[in-house]
């Protein structure tokens, strides 16, 4: 579904991504794990078109999308829940969700999807008219996920959805991610919480200072000594 080939991204003279290649197959949950500053966010931003690569290719369903703008990529079915959620704090929960469907014109289906989101996140239904900035961190994360789903993505990019949340809530968010995936949405999940991410992922990549250093199934990586040491706090 999504393929990245030899991607290089620079911020000025700093090279944030060095020749990264990765693949996400249709229906998979793929996770990209790595420490602070490894280049995870940069990878997702480049896939969404917010950062321009210096070289390399991004393919969606075999078609080159590297030169498309961010909105065009949304139209093709790439949706992102950005790091830090980035909801629109002065707008209501409802308006945030409506913005997620900005490119759609099928009013009736938008309504249906909105109902589905309220079912998945009942708290958002209760807070419909509330300004999004007044939501708690966990609620904001749910809103950001709901908003991203409103575009009916084929692939959903999630940037550290568990960041800053209590353990119980983290568990819930990961359950929801699994559930979203089971209804047919392909997922690329960026996480620092490696154990949780590896537990739900079909496949995983490890990124260190802009380079992919390891890849395999979630299970394989969870068992690997190096991963145990570096990311799972094992001996």
């Amino acid at each position, binding site marked *: 579904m999504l393929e990245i080939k030899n991607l290089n991204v620079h911020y000025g003279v700093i090279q944030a991504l060095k020749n990264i290649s990765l693949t996400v197959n249709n229906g998979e949950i793929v996770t990209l794990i790595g420490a602070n500053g490894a280049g995870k966010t940069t990878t997702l*931003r480049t896939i*969404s*078109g*917010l950062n321009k690569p210096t070289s390399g290719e991004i393919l969606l369903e075999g078609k080159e999308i590297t030169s498309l*703008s*961010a*909105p065009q990529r*949304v*139209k093709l079915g790439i*949706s*992102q829940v*950005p790091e830090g959620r*980035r*909801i*629109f*704090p*002065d*707008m209501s929960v409802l*308006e945030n969700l*409506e*913005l*997620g469907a*900005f*490119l759609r014109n099928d009013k009736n289906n938008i309504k249906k999807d909105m109902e589905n989101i309220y079912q998945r996140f009942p708290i958002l239904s209760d807070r419909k008219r509330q300004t999004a900035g007044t939501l708690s961190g966990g609620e904001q994360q749910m809103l950001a996920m709901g*908003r*991203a789903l409103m*575009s009916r993505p084929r692939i959903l990019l999630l940037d550290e959805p568990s960041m800053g949340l209590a353990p119980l809530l983290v568990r819930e968010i990961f359950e929801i991610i699994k559930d979203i995936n089971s209804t047919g949405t392909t997922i690329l999940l960026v996480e620092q919480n490696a154990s949780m991410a590896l537990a739900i992922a079909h496949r995983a990549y490890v990124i260190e200072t802009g380079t992919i250093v390891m890849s395999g199934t979630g299970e394989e990586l969870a068992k690997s000594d190096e991963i145990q040491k570096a990311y799972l706090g094992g001996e």
Partner: protein
Amino acid sequence: MEQFLQQVVNGISLGSIYALIALGYTMVYGIINLINFAHGDVYMIGAYIGFAAITYAKLGFFPALVITMILCAILGVVIERVAYKPLRNSTRIAVLITAIGVSLLLEYVMMFFVGAEVRSYPKVLSGEVFHLVGVVINIQQIYIVVTAIALMILLQFIVHKTKIGKAMRAVSVDQDAAQLMGIKVDSTISYTFAIGSAFAGAAGVLVGIYYNSIDPLMGIMPGLKAFIAAVFGGIGSIPGAMIGGLSIGIMETLVSGYGNSMYRDAAVFAFLIIILILKPTGLLGKNTREKV
């Protein structure tokens, strides 16, 4: 008392015009953090377009207003595309200096084409006056206030109910997040310039009708005062610009009516300084950090 009411009525007319101009300042600032110094000159050009539409094309008030607004909207978009867009990633000071350059360019290009002399506006509305509890209200004032209110209601509708308005609000808060929703930042910025400039054009026509005279430098002072109105209301806030415009209009007529019209402008600036000391973000401004 009657004199007071009379000054308030005059102040509301003048203030409505300031409010229309202030809206453009505040919307543009809200979306790209630029104080568009050329905005007062778009208002001046609007006054000339209205002048031409009424004098040469023999149009009535309403068609002249609509044509002026359309042409000013186009002018605003052209200014943005040509002068500001290439500087999207430059320092703020570079863009600010460019804005001042565009302002001077518009003023002197107009002077070249239409001459520096003051022209008197054609009479497009009757000179009828109404007397209401001792207050004189003329037909121009009614047109000004009604037009301004109608445009502000239209703006509220656009901003809150339409996709363009929602895109404008989203881009003004977070451009990256807006793009992730599929919003095109460049066209949203263009729409913002179009609407703000159309409003400035409308204000230009209204002022021509009210004061009966226009010249190529007429945009400087009202532009400055409308900018103050926007800051007073809280720059970036649409209701703030409306309230700011009205307050400054009323204050100005009261100072000229009771005191001395020579102190009028000084009073406005003193007032701004006091407001900024008491509440640096303006009346309805948010206490959020300055965006980078």
